[in-house]
Protein backbone atom coordinates (compact mmCIF):
# COMPACT_ATOMS: atom_id res chain seq x y z
CA UNK A 1 0.00 0.00 0.00
CA UNK A 2 2.63 2.52 1.04
CA UNK A 3 4.48 2.24 -2.26
CA UNK A 4 1.50 2.35 -4.61
CA UNK A 5 1.39 5.03 -7.29
CA UNK A 6 -1.26 7.74 -7.20
CA UNK A 7 -3.20 6.14 -10.02
CA UNK A 8 -3.06 2.73 -8.30
CA UNK A 9 -4.32 4.27 -5.04
CA UNK A 10 -7.08 6.08 -6.91
CA UNK A 11 -8.08 2.82 -8.60
CA UNK A 12 -8.24 1.02 -5.24
CA UNK A 13 -10.41 3.81 -3.86
CA UNK A 14 -12.69 3.76 -6.89
CA UNK A 15 -13.04 -0.03 -6.64
CA UNK A 16 -13.87 0.43 -2.93
CA UNK A 17 -11.01 -1.89 -1.93
CA UNK A 18 -10.02 0.75 0.59
CA UNK A 19 -11.67 3.89 1.91
CA UNK A 20 -10.00 7.28 2.02
CA UNK A 21 -10.17 7.16 5.83
CA UNK A 22 -8.44 3.78 5.91
CA UNK A 23 -5.81 4.97 3.48
CA UNK A 24 -5.20 8.19 5.44
CA UNK A 25 -4.94 6.18 8.67
CA UNK A 26 -2.36 3.85 7.10
CA UNK A 27 -0.20 6.83 6.16
CA UNK A 28 -0.71 8.46 9.58
CA UNK A 29 0.45 5.21 11.20
CA UNK A 30 3.50 5.14 8.99
CA UNK A 31 4.23 8.79 9.82
CA UNK A 32 3.93 7.96 13.55
CA UNK A 33 6.55 5.24 13.10
CA UNK A 34 9.01 6.98 10.78
CA UNK A 35 8.68 10.71 11.35
CA UNK A 36 10.42 10.84 14.75
CA UNK A 37 13.70 9.92 13.04
CA UNK A 38 13.10 12.03 9.89
CA UNK A 39 11.34 15.19 11.22
CA UNK A 40 9.59 15.75 7.88
CA UNK A 41 6.44 17.23 9.42
CA UNK A 42 5.96 20.39 11.44
CA UNK A 43 2.24 19.89 12.05
CA UNK A 44 0.11 16.75 12.12
CA UNK A 45 -3.59 16.74 12.99
CA UNK A 46 -5.10 13.28 12.58
CA UNK A 47 -8.63 14.49 13.35
CA UNK A 48 -8.52 17.06 10.55
CA UNK A 49 -6.93 14.58 8.14
CA UNK A 50 -9.57 11.94 8.85
CA UNK A 51 -12.39 14.48 8.61
CA UNK A 52 -11.13 15.51 5.16
CA UNK A 53 -10.87 11.83 4.23
CA UNK A 54 -14.49 11.32 5.30
CA UNK A 55 -15.50 14.12 2.92
CA UNK A 56 -13.61 12.31 0.16
CA UNK A 57 -15.35 9.03 1.01
CA UNK A 58 -18.71 10.80 0.73
CA UNK A 59 -17.74 12.13 -2.71
CA UNK A 60 -16.72 8.63 -3.82
CA UNK A 61 -19.96 7.14 -2.45
CA UNK A 62 -21.98 9.79 -4.28
CA UNK A 63 -20.23 9.01 -7.56
CA UNK A 64 -18.66 12.49 -7.61
CA UNK A 65 -15.03 11.39 -7.38
CA UNK A 66 -12.35 12.98 -9.55
CA UNK A 67 -9.18 11.17 -10.69
CA UNK A 68 -7.41 11.54 -7.31
CA UNK A 69 -10.31 11.86 -4.87
CA UNK A 70 -9.47 10.22 -1.56
CA UNK A 71 -5.71 10.07 -2.14
CA UNK A 72 -3.95 11.91 0.70
CA UNK A 73 -1.20 14.49 0.18
CA UNK A 74 1.22 16.41 2.42
CA UNK A 75 1.54 20.18 2.06
CA UNK A 76 4.66 22.29 2.46
CA UNK A 77 4.23 24.59 5.43
CA UNK A 78 4.55 27.61 3.15
CA UNK A 79 0.92 27.24 2.02
CA UNK A 80 -1.70 28.97 4.14
CA UNK A 81 -4.12 26.26 5.22
CA UNK A 82 -7.36 27.32 6.89
CA UNK A 83 -7.38 26.24 10.53
CA UNK A 84 -3.89 24.67 10.37
CA UNK A 85 -0.74 26.06 11.86
CA UNK A 86 1.22 27.62 8.96
CA UNK A 87 4.74 28.46 10.09
CA UNK A 88 6.90 28.70 6.96
CA UNK A 89 9.56 27.04 9.11
CA UNK A 90 9.99 30.20 11.18
CA UNK A 91 9.70 31.29 14.78
CA UNK A 92 8.15 34.43 13.28
CA UNK A 93 5.04 32.37 12.41
CA UNK A 94 5.31 29.70 15.13
CA UNK A 95 1.78 30.52 16.31
CA UNK A 96 0.14 31.52 13.01
CA UNK A 97 -3.05 29.60 12.25
CA UNK A 98 -3.97 30.63 8.72
CA UNK A 99 -7.45 32.16 8.38
CA UNK A 100 -7.81 31.08 4.73
CA UNK A 101 -6.62 28.50 2.20
CA UNK A 102 -3.95 29.15 -0.41
CA UNK A 103 -5.22 28.66 -3.97
CA UNK A 104 -3.19 25.44 -4.26
CA UNK A 105 -4.82 24.12 -1.07
CA UNK A 106 -8.27 25.08 -2.38
CA UNK A 107 -7.58 23.08 -5.52
CA UNK A 108 -6.44 19.95 -3.68
CA UNK A 109 -9.46 20.23 -1.37
CA UNK A 110 -11.78 20.59 -4.35
CA UNK A 111 -10.13 17.50 -5.86
CA UNK A 112 -11.02 15.62 -2.65
CA UNK A 113 -7.43 15.02 -1.53
CA UNK A 114 -7.10 15.01 2.28
CA UNK A 115 -4.09 16.73 3.84
CA UNK A 116 -1.76 14.49 5.86
CA UNK A 117 -0.05 17.45 7.49
CA UNK A 118 2.32 20.35 6.97
CA UNK A 119 5.87 19.54 5.97
CA UNK A 120 9.08 20.95 7.36
CA UNK A 121 11.12 23.38 5.28
CA UNK A 122 14.00 25.82 5.42
CA UNK A 123 12.88 29.02 7.12
CA UNK A 124 10.89 31.11 4.61
CA UNK A 125 12.18 28.68 1.94
CA UNK A 126 15.70 30.10 2.25
CA UNK A 127 18.10 27.20 2.24
CA UNK A 128 19.32 24.11 0.41
CA UNK A 129 19.58 21.66 3.31
CA UNK A 130 16.52 22.17 5.53
CA UNK A 131 18.84 23.07 8.38
CA UNK A 132 17.51 26.62 8.70
CA UNK A 133 14.08 25.45 9.92
CA UNK A 134 13.09 26.76 13.36
CA UNK A 135 11.57 23.30 13.89
CA UNK A 136 14.83 21.42 13.45
CA UNK A 137 16.57 19.87 10.48
CA UNK A 138 14.91 17.19 8.35
CA UNK A 139 16.96 13.99 7.95
CA UNK A 140 17.46 12.24 4.64
CA UNK A 141 15.58 8.90 4.72
CA UNK A 142 18.42 7.24 2.77
CA UNK A 143 20.83 8.04 5.58
CA UNK A 144 19.68 10.06 8.56
CA UNK A 145 23.08 11.68 9.08
CA UNK A 146 22.66 13.44 5.71
CA UNK A 147 20.52 16.42 4.71
CA UNK A 148 17.44 15.95 2.50
CA UNK A 149 18.14 19.13 0.53
CA UNK A 150 15.91 22.17 0.66
CA UNK A 151 13.94 24.16 0.95
CA UNK A 152 11.15 21.57 0.37
CA UNK A 153 13.16 19.02 2.38
CA UNK A 154 10.27 17.77 4.49
CA UNK A 155 8.17 17.23 1.37
CA UNK A 156 10.95 15.30 -0.39
CA UNK A 157 11.80 13.23 2.70
CA UNK A 158 8.19 12.29 3.47
CA UNK A 159 7.62 11.13 -0.11
CA UNK A 160 10.95 9.27 -0.21
CA UNK A 161 10.07 7.43 3.02
CA UNK A 162 6.54 6.85 1.67
CA UNK A 163 5.01 8.68 4.61
CA UNK A 164 2.86 10.38 1.96
CA UNK A 165 2.07 9.30 -1.60
CA UNK A 166 2.75 12.86 -2.79
CA UNK A 167 3.52 16.35 -1.53
CA UNK A 168 3.42 19.95 -2.63
CA UNK A 169 6.60 21.98 -2.84
CA UNK A 170 7.76 25.40 -3.95
CA UNK A 171 10.80 26.29 -6.00
CA UNK A 172 12.44 29.74 -6.05
CA UNK A 173 15.99 28.66 -6.94
CA UNK A 174 15.73 24.85 -6.90
CA UNK A 175 13.70 24.15 -3.76
CA UNK A 176 11.62 21.39 -5.40
CA UNK A 177 14.25 19.91 -7.72
CA UNK A 178 17.31 19.82 -5.42
CA UNK A 179 15.59 18.02 -2.49
CA UNK A 180 13.85 15.71 -4.98
CA UNK A 181 17.31 14.83 -6.32
CA UNK A 182 18.86 14.36 -2.88
CA UNK A 183 15.95 12.17 -1.68
CA UNK A 184 15.50 10.11 -4.86
CA UNK A 185 12.02 11.26 -5.89
CA UNK A 186 10.50 13.14 -8.83
CA UNK A 187 9.67 16.84 -8.56
CA UNK A 188 8.55 19.45 -11.05
CA UNK A 189 8.72 23.25 -11.05
CA UNK A 190 6.19 24.52 -13.60
CA UNK A 191 6.53 27.48 -15.95
CA UNK A 192 6.28 30.69 -13.93
CA UNK A 193 2.63 31.76 -13.77
CA UNK A 194 0.98 28.34 -14.20
CA UNK A 195 0.30 27.78 -10.51
CA UNK A 196 -1.24 30.52 -8.40
CA UNK A 197 0.91 31.99 -5.64
CA UNK A 198 -2.14 33.19 -3.69
CA UNK A 199 -1.73 32.17 -0.06
CA UNK A 200 1.78 30.86 -0.66
CA UNK A 201 3.99 32.84 1.70
CA UNK A 202 6.15 35.00 -0.56
CA UNK A 203 9.94 34.73 -0.73
CA UNK A 204 10.98 36.17 -4.13
CA UNK A 205 7.80 36.86 -6.05
CA UNK A 206 9.27 36.99 -9.56
CA UNK A 207 10.78 33.51 -9.06
CA UNK A 208 8.50 31.58 -6.65
CA UNK A 209 6.51 28.76 -8.20
CA UNK A 210 4.71 25.80 -6.62
CA UNK A 211 4.84 22.28 -8.02
CA UNK A 212 4.28 18.59 -7.32
CA UNK A 213 6.66 16.11 -5.65
CA UNK A 214 5.98 12.37 -5.91
CA UNK A 215 7.74 9.09 -6.69
CA UNK A 216 7.13 9.19 -10.44
CA UNK A 217 6.63 11.53 -13.40
CA UNK A 218 3.18 10.06 -13.99
CA UNK A 219 2.21 10.98 -10.42
CA UNK A 220 3.53 14.50 -10.98
CA UNK A 221 1.47 14.83 -14.18
CA UNK A 222 -1.72 13.90 -12.31
CA UNK A 223 -0.92 16.39 -9.52
CA UNK A 224 -0.09 19.13 -12.00
CA UNK A 225 -3.55 18.64 -13.50
CA UNK A 226 -4.95 19.57 -10.09
CA UNK A 227 -2.57 22.44 -9.25
CA UNK A 228 -2.53 24.52 -12.41
CA UNK A 229 -5.11 27.01 -13.59
CA UNK A 230 -5.93 30.68 -13.67
CA UNK A 231 -6.51 32.51 -10.40
CA UNK A 232 -7.65 36.14 -10.39
CA UNK A 233 -6.15 36.52 -6.89
CA UNK A 234 -2.60 36.23 -8.26
CA UNK A 235 -1.64 39.08 -10.58
CA UNK A 236 0.98 36.86 -12.25
CA UNK A 237 -1.40 33.93 -12.84
CA UNK A 238 -1.63 33.21 -16.55
CA UNK A 239 -4.96 32.89 -18.37
CA UNK A 240 -4.49 29.76 -20.45
CA UNK A 241 -6.57 26.83 -21.57
CA UNK A 242 -6.50 23.98 -19.09
CA UNK A 243 -4.10 21.23 -20.19
CA UNK A 244 -4.04 17.51 -19.49
CA UNK A 245 -0.42 16.93 -18.49
CA UNK A 246 -0.77 13.16 -18.85
CA UNK A 247 -1.66 13.39 -22.53
CA UNK A 248 1.82 12.74 -23.94
CA UNK A 249 3.17 10.35 -21.30
CA UNK A 250 3.07 7.34 -23.61
CA UNK A 251 4.52 9.01 -26.70
CA UNK A 252 7.74 7.39 -27.97
CA UNK A 253 10.93 9.44 -27.74
CA UNK A 254 11.96 8.77 -31.32
CA UNK A 255 13.50 11.92 -32.76
CA UNK A 256 13.61 13.76 -29.42
CA UNK A 257 16.45 16.28 -29.43
CA UNK A 258 18.10 16.48 -26.01
CA UNK A 259 20.28 19.54 -25.43
CA UNK A 260 23.35 19.06 -23.23
CA UNK A 261 24.66 22.38 -21.87
CA UNK A 262 28.43 22.04 -21.73
CA UNK A 263 28.51 24.40 -18.72
CA UNK A 264 26.53 21.83 -16.68
CA UNK A 265 29.15 19.15 -17.24
CA UNK A 266 32.16 21.29 -16.37
CA UNK A 267 34.30 21.60 -13.25
CA UNK A 268 32.51 21.35 -9.93
CA UNK A 269 30.42 18.36 -10.95
CA UNK A 270 30.91 15.27 -8.81
CA UNK A 271 32.21 12.27 -10.84
CA UNK A 272 29.58 9.82 -9.65
CA UNK A 273 26.81 12.26 -10.56
CA UNK A 274 28.40 12.81 -13.99
CA UNK A 275 28.58 9.05 -14.58
CA UNK A 276 24.93 8.51 -13.63
CA UNK A 277 23.80 11.37 -15.85
CA UNK A 278 25.86 9.99 -18.76
CA UNK A 279 24.17 6.62 -18.25
CA UNK A 280 20.76 8.32 -18.33
CA UNK A 281 21.71 9.99 -21.61
CA UNK A 282 22.67 6.59 -23.03
CA UNK A 283 19.30 5.21 -21.89
CA UNK A 284 17.42 8.03 -23.62
CA UNK A 285 19.42 7.40 -26.80
CA UNK A 286 18.32 3.76 -26.67
CA UNK A 287 14.76 5.07 -26.51
CA UNK A 288 15.28 7.01 -29.73
CA UNK A 289 16.55 10.39 -28.57
CA UNK A 290 19.46 12.25 -30.14
CA UNK A 291 21.73 14.67 -28.31
CA UNK A 292 22.96 18.09 -29.29
CA UNK A 293 25.57 20.13 -27.47
CA UNK A 294 24.33 23.54 -26.44
CA UNK A 295 25.78 26.46 -24.50
CA UNK A 296 24.25 28.39 -21.63
CA UNK A 297 27.27 30.67 -21.40
CA UNK A 298 25.80 33.10 -18.88
CA UNK A 299 24.47 30.44 -16.51
CA UNK A 300 27.69 30.66 -14.49
CA UNK A 301 26.42 34.09 -13.40
CA UNK A 302 23.09 32.68 -12.20
CA UNK A 303 24.18 32.42 -8.55
CA UNK A 304 25.44 36.01 -8.18
CA UNK A 305 22.38 37.29 -10.07
CA UNK A 306 20.06 35.23 -7.90
CA UNK A 307 21.71 36.40 -4.67
CA UNK A 308 20.93 39.97 -5.65
CA UNK A 309 17.40 39.53 -7.00
CA UNK A 310 15.99 36.99 -4.53
CA UNK A 311 17.20 38.83 -1.38
CA UNK A 312 16.01 42.15 -2.85
CA UNK A 313 12.52 40.75 -3.34
CA UNK A 314 12.67 38.96 0.01
CA UNK A 315 13.65 42.12 1.89
CA UNK A 316 10.50 43.73 0.52
CA UNK A 317 8.22 40.70 1.03
CA UNK A 318 9.40 40.00 4.56
CA UNK A 319 8.91 43.59 5.70
CA UNK A 320 5.34 42.50 6.53
CA UNK A 321 6.61 40.59 9.56
CA UNK A 322 6.65 43.41 12.07
CA UNK A 323 4.86 41.95 15.10
CA UNK A 324 1.68 43.92 14.48
CA UNK A 325 -0.81 41.86 12.51
CA UNK A 326 0.23 38.24 12.98
CA UNK A 327 2.94 35.98 14.29
CA UNK A 328 5.66 36.63 16.79
CA UNK A 329 6.05 39.84 18.78
CA UNK A 330 9.04 40.46 21.06
CA UNK A 331 7.98 40.30 24.72
CA UNK A 332 9.78 43.52 25.70
CA UNK A 333 10.39 46.79 23.87
CA UNK A 334 10.59 50.51 24.56
CA UNK A 335 8.71 51.99 21.60
CA UNK A 336 7.22 51.06 18.21
CA UNK A 337 10.50 51.13 16.32
CA UNK A 338 12.19 49.08 19.03
CA UNK A 339 9.29 46.60 18.82
CA UNK A 340 9.89 46.14 15.07
CA UNK A 341 13.65 45.74 15.49
CA UNK A 342 13.48 43.31 18.42
CA UNK A 343 10.60 41.30 16.90
CA UNK A 344 12.55 40.82 13.66
CA UNK A 345 15.87 40.15 15.43
CA UNK A 346 14.25 37.44 17.59
CA UNK A 347 11.69 36.08 15.10
CA UNK A 348 13.97 35.52 12.10
CA UNK A 349 16.84 33.02 11.95
CA UNK A 350 20.38 33.85 10.85
CA UNK A 351 20.03 32.96 7.14
CA UNK A 352 16.79 34.91 6.73
CA UNK A 353 18.34 37.95 8.41
CA UNK A 354 21.39 37.68 6.15
CA UNK A 355 19.23 37.66 3.05
CA UNK A 356 17.03 40.53 4.20
CA UNK A 357 20.17 42.55 4.86
CA UNK A 358 21.66 41.72 1.45
CA UNK A 359 18.37 42.82 -0.11
CA UNK A 360 18.16 46.03 1.88
CA UNK A 361 21.72 46.86 0.84
CA UNK A 362 21.43 46.19 -2.90
CA UNK A 363 18.25 48.26 -3.04
CA UNK A 364 19.65 51.12 -0.99
CA UNK A 365 20.46 54.54 -2.35
CA UNK A 366 23.56 54.60 -4.54
CA UNK A 367 23.79 50.84 -5.07
CA UNK A 368 20.63 50.08 -7.03
CA UNK A 369 22.15 50.39 -10.52
CA UNK A 370 25.34 48.49 -9.71
CA UNK A 371 23.54 45.55 -8.14
CA UNK A 372 19.82 45.28 -8.80
CA UNK A 373 19.73 46.68 -12.33
CA UNK A 374 22.91 44.86 -13.38
CA UNK A 375 21.43 41.60 -12.05
CA UNK A 376 18.21 42.16 -14.00
CA UNK A 377 20.21 42.74 -17.19
CA UNK A 378 22.21 39.54 -16.74
CA UNK A 379 18.93 37.77 -15.99
CA UNK A 380 17.92 38.75 -19.54
CA UNK A 381 21.17 37.31 -20.93
CA UNK A 382 20.55 34.03 -19.10
CA UNK A 383 16.98 33.82 -20.46
CA UNK A 384 18.23 34.65 -23.97
CA UNK A 385 20.72 31.75 -23.80
CA UNK A 386 17.80 29.37 -23.17
CA UNK A 387 15.78 30.83 -26.07
CA UNK A 388 18.71 30.29 -28.41
CA UNK A 389 19.23 26.74 -27.12
CA UNK A 390 15.60 25.75 -27.66
CA UNK A 391 16.01 26.51 -31.37
CA UNK A 392 18.13 23.35 -31.63
CA UNK A 393 16.65 21.05 -28.93
CA UNK A 394 13.33 20.00 -27.41
CA UNK A 395 14.47 19.57 -23.83
CA UNK A 396 17.64 20.41 -21.90
CA UNK A 397 19.23 17.75 -19.71
CA UNK A 398 21.88 17.78 -17.02
CA UNK A 399 22.50 17.07 -13.36
CA UNK A 400 20.08 18.58 -10.83
CA UNK A 401 22.76 19.26 -8.22
CA UNK A 402 26.56 19.17 -8.40
CA UNK A 403 26.70 16.36 -5.84
CA UNK A 404 24.58 14.01 -3.75
CA UNK A 405 23.33 14.73 -0.23
CA UNK A 406 25.92 16.12 2.19
CA UNK A 407 26.21 15.55 5.92
CA UNK A 408 24.12 17.51 8.38
CA UNK A 409 26.21 20.46 9.52
CA UNK A 410 28.78 20.04 6.74
CA UNK A 411 27.96 23.29 4.93
CA UNK A 412 25.81 25.15 7.43
CA UNK A 413 28.61 27.52 8.49
CA UNK A 414 29.49 28.61 4.98
CA UNK A 415 26.62 30.38 3.16
CA UNK A 416 28.43 30.57 -0.19
CA UNK A 417 29.29 26.86 -0.17
CA UNK A 418 25.61 26.16 0.51
CA UNK A 419 24.49 28.50 -2.30
CA UNK A 420 26.59 26.61 -4.87
CA UNK A 421 24.21 23.65 -4.52
CA UNK A 422 21.71 25.48 -6.70
CA UNK A 423 24.15 26.16 -9.52
CA UNK A 424 22.18 24.12 -12.08
CA UNK A 425 18.65 24.83 -10.85
CA UNK A 426 18.64 28.63 -10.53
CA UNK A 427 18.92 29.42 -14.27
CA UNK A 428 15.44 27.97 -14.98
CA UNK A 429 13.91 30.11 -12.21
CA UNK A 430 15.53 33.26 -13.57
CA UNK A 431 14.19 32.50 -17.05
CA UNK A 432 10.79 31.35 -15.72
CA UNK A 433 11.14 27.98 -17.45
CA UNK A 434 9.77 24.65 -16.23
CA UNK A 435 12.25 22.18 -14.78
CA UNK A 436 12.12 18.82 -13.11
CA UNK A 437 14.32 16.34 -11.31
CA UNK A 438 14.02 12.57 -11.46
CA UNK A 439 16.12 9.80 -9.94
CA UNK A 440 18.87 8.39 -12.19
CA UNK A 441 21.14 6.40 -9.89
CA UNK A 442 23.00 6.19 -6.61
CA UNK A 443 26.50 7.05 -5.46
CA UNK A 444 28.84 4.63 -3.68
CA UNK A 445 27.35 5.68 -0.34
CA UNK A 446 23.88 4.66 -1.51
CA UNK A 447 22.63 8.23 -1.82
CA UNK A 448 20.30 9.13 -4.72
CA UNK A 449 21.40 11.09 -7.81
CA UNK A 450 19.04 13.46 -9.63
CA UNK A 451 18.68 14.07 -13.35
CA UNK A 452 17.38 17.49 -14.35
CA UNK A 453 15.23 18.30 -17.35
CA UNK A 454 14.51 21.90 -18.34
CA UNK A 455 11.83 22.53 -20.92
CA UNK A 456 10.73 25.50 -22.97
CA UNK A 457 7.86 27.62 -21.65
CA UNK A 458 4.66 25.54 -21.20
CA UNK A 459 6.35 22.30 -22.28
CA UNK A 460 5.55 20.43 -19.05
CA UNK A 461 3.76 17.67 -20.97
CA UNK A 462 6.88 17.10 -23.09
CA UNK A 463 9.18 16.97 -20.06
CA UNK A 464 6.82 14.56 -18.32
CA UNK A 465 6.75 12.42 -21.45
CA UNK A 466 10.56 12.19 -21.44
CA UNK A 467 10.65 11.47 -17.70
CA UNK A 468 7.90 8.84 -17.89
CA UNK A 469 9.55 7.00 -20.77
CA UNK A 470 12.84 7.05 -18.84
CA UNK A 471 11.03 5.68 -15.78
CA UNK A 472 9.40 2.92 -17.83
CA UNK A 473 12.90 1.80 -18.84
CA UNK A 474 14.55 2.21 -15.41
CA UNK A 475 13.63 1.50 -11.79
CA UNK A 476 15.60 4.17 -9.91
CA UNK A 477 12.35 5.87 -8.87
CA UNK A 478 11.05 2.62 -7.37
CA UNK A 479 13.98 2.08 -5.04
CA UNK A 480 13.10 2.62 -1.39
CA UNK A 481 15.26 3.89 1.45
CA UNK A 482 16.05 1.42 4.28
CA UNK A 483 13.08 2.34 6.53
CA UNK A 484 10.73 2.20 3.56
CA UNK A 485 11.72 -1.30 2.55
CA UNK A 486 11.10 -2.65 6.04
CA UNK A 487 7.36 -2.12 5.87
CA UNK A 488 6.47 -1.31 2.29
CA UNK A 489 4.71 -3.94 0.22
CA UNK A 490 5.28 -3.29 -3.45
CA UNK A 491 2.39 -2.75 -5.77
CA UNK A 492 2.55 -1.48 -9.30
CA UNK A 493 0.42 1.01 -11.12
Amino acid at each position, binding site marked *: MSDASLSALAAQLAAKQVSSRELAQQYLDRIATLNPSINAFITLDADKTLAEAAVADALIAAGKAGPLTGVPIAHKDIFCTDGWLTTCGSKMLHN*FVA*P*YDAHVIQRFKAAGMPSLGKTNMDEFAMGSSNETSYFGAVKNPWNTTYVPGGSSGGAAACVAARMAPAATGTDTGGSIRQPAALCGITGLKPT*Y*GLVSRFGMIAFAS*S*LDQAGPMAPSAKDCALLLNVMTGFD*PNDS*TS*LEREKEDYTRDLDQPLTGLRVGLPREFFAEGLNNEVATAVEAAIAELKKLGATTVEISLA*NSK*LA*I*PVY*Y*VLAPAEA*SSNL*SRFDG*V*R*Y*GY*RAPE*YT*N*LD*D*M*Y*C*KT*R*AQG*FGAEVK*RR*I*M*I*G*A*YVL*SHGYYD*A*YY*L*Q*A*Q*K*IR*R*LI*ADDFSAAFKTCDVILGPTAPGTAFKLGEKSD*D*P*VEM*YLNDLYTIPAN*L*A*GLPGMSLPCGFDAKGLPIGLQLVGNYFSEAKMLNVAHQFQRATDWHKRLPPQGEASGARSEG
Partner: protein
Amino acid sequence: MSLSPDDVKRIARLARIEIDDVQAQATQGQLNTIFDLIATMQAVDTSGIAPMAHAQEVTQRLRADIVTETDRHAAFQAVAPAVENDLYLVPKVIE
Protein backbone atom coordinates in the same frame (compact mmCIF):
# COMPACT_ATOMS: atom_id res chain seq x y z
CA MET B 1 34.12 46.02 -1.98
CA SER B 2 34.21 45.41 1.71
CA LEU B 3 31.57 46.23 4.32
CA SER B 4 32.67 47.64 7.67
CA PRO B 5 30.89 46.78 10.95
CA ASP B 6 29.30 50.23 10.74
CA ASP B 7 27.98 49.42 7.25
CA VAL B 8 26.47 46.23 8.63
CA LYS B 9 24.78 48.16 11.42
CA ARG B 10 23.43 50.68 8.94
CA ILE B 11 21.99 47.89 6.76
CA ALA B 12 20.48 46.17 9.81
CA ARG B 13 18.94 49.50 10.74
CA LEU B 14 17.43 49.82 7.23
CA ALA B 15 16.01 46.31 7.61
CA ARG B 16 14.70 47.02 11.15
CA ILE B 17 16.71 44.18 12.64
CA GLU B 18 18.35 44.82 16.00
CA ILE B 19 22.01 43.83 15.96
CA ASP B 20 24.74 44.20 18.57
CA ASP B 21 28.46 44.74 18.01
CA VAL B 22 29.36 41.06 18.30
CA GLN B 23 26.67 40.03 15.79
CA ALA B 24 27.66 42.86 13.45
CA GLN B 25 31.23 41.57 13.50
CA ALA B 26 30.16 38.01 12.64
CA THR B 27 27.69 39.14 10.00
CA GLN B 28 30.29 41.39 8.38
CA GLY B 29 32.48 38.44 7.40
CA GLN B 30 29.59 36.42 5.97
CA LEU B 31 28.14 39.33 4.03
CA ASN B 32 31.55 40.17 2.58
CA THR B 33 31.98 36.60 1.31
CA ILE B 34 28.55 36.81 -0.32
CA PHE B 35 29.29 40.20 -1.86
CA ASP B 36 32.58 38.86 -3.23
CA LEU B 37 30.50 36.24 -5.05
CA ILE B 38 28.04 38.87 -6.24
CA ALA B 39 30.90 41.08 -7.47
CA THR B 40 31.69 38.61 -10.29
CA MET B 41 28.63 40.13 -11.99
CA GLN B 42 30.33 43.47 -12.38
CA ALA B 43 32.73 42.24 -15.05
CA VAL B 44 29.90 41.65 -17.54
CA ASP B 45 29.25 44.28 -20.19
CA THR B 46 25.49 44.81 -20.15
CA SER B 47 25.28 48.05 -22.13
CA GLY B 48 22.20 48.03 -24.31
CA ILE B 49 20.58 45.09 -22.47
CA ALA B 50 17.06 45.69 -21.23
CA PRO B 51 16.62 44.67 -17.59
CA MET B 52 14.36 41.64 -17.08
CA ALA B 53 12.09 42.23 -14.10
CA HIS B 54 9.84 39.31 -14.64
CA ALA B 55 9.68 35.87 -16.26
CA GLN B 56 6.53 36.56 -18.24
CA GLU B 57 5.98 39.68 -20.31
CA VAL B 58 2.44 40.32 -19.15
CA THR B 59 0.70 43.51 -18.18
CA GLN B 60 -1.27 43.90 -14.98
CA ARG B 61 -4.88 42.84 -15.29
CA LEU B 62 -7.58 45.27 -14.25
CA ARG B 63 -10.74 44.11 -12.56
CA ALA B 64 -14.14 45.71 -12.28
CA ASP B 65 -14.29 48.37 -9.59
CA ILE B 66 -16.64 46.47 -7.31
CA VAL B 67 -16.31 45.17 -3.77
CA THR B 68 -15.34 41.51 -3.78
CA GLU B 69 -14.02 41.05 -0.24
CA THR B 70 -16.24 40.19 2.67
CA ASP B 71 -15.60 41.58 6.16
CA ARG B 72 -13.41 39.00 7.89
CA HIS B 73 -11.68 41.27 10.37
CA ALA B 74 -12.53 39.00 13.30
CA ALA B 75 -10.77 36.03 11.67
CA PHE B 76 -7.79 38.11 10.62
CA GLN B 77 -7.42 39.86 13.97
CA ALA B 78 -7.72 36.59 15.86
CA VAL B 79 -4.09 35.87 14.86
CA ALA B 80 -2.76 39.31 15.85
CA PRO B 81 -0.45 39.71 18.87
CA ALA B 82 -2.60 42.48 20.42
CA VAL B 83 -6.07 43.78 19.47
CA GLU B 84 -8.57 46.00 21.25
CA ASN B 85 -11.92 47.31 19.95
CA ASP B 86 -11.13 45.84 16.50
CA LEU B 87 -7.90 47.84 16.37
CA TYR B 88 -4.32 46.53 16.27
CA LEU B 89 -2.47 47.62 19.37
CA VAL B 90 1.07 48.98 19.12
CA PRO B 91 3.18 51.03 21.53
CA LYS B 92 2.17 54.68 21.81
CA VAL B 93 3.61 56.73 18.94
CA ILE B 94 2.11 60.15 19.78
CA GLU B 95 2.90 61.67 23.16
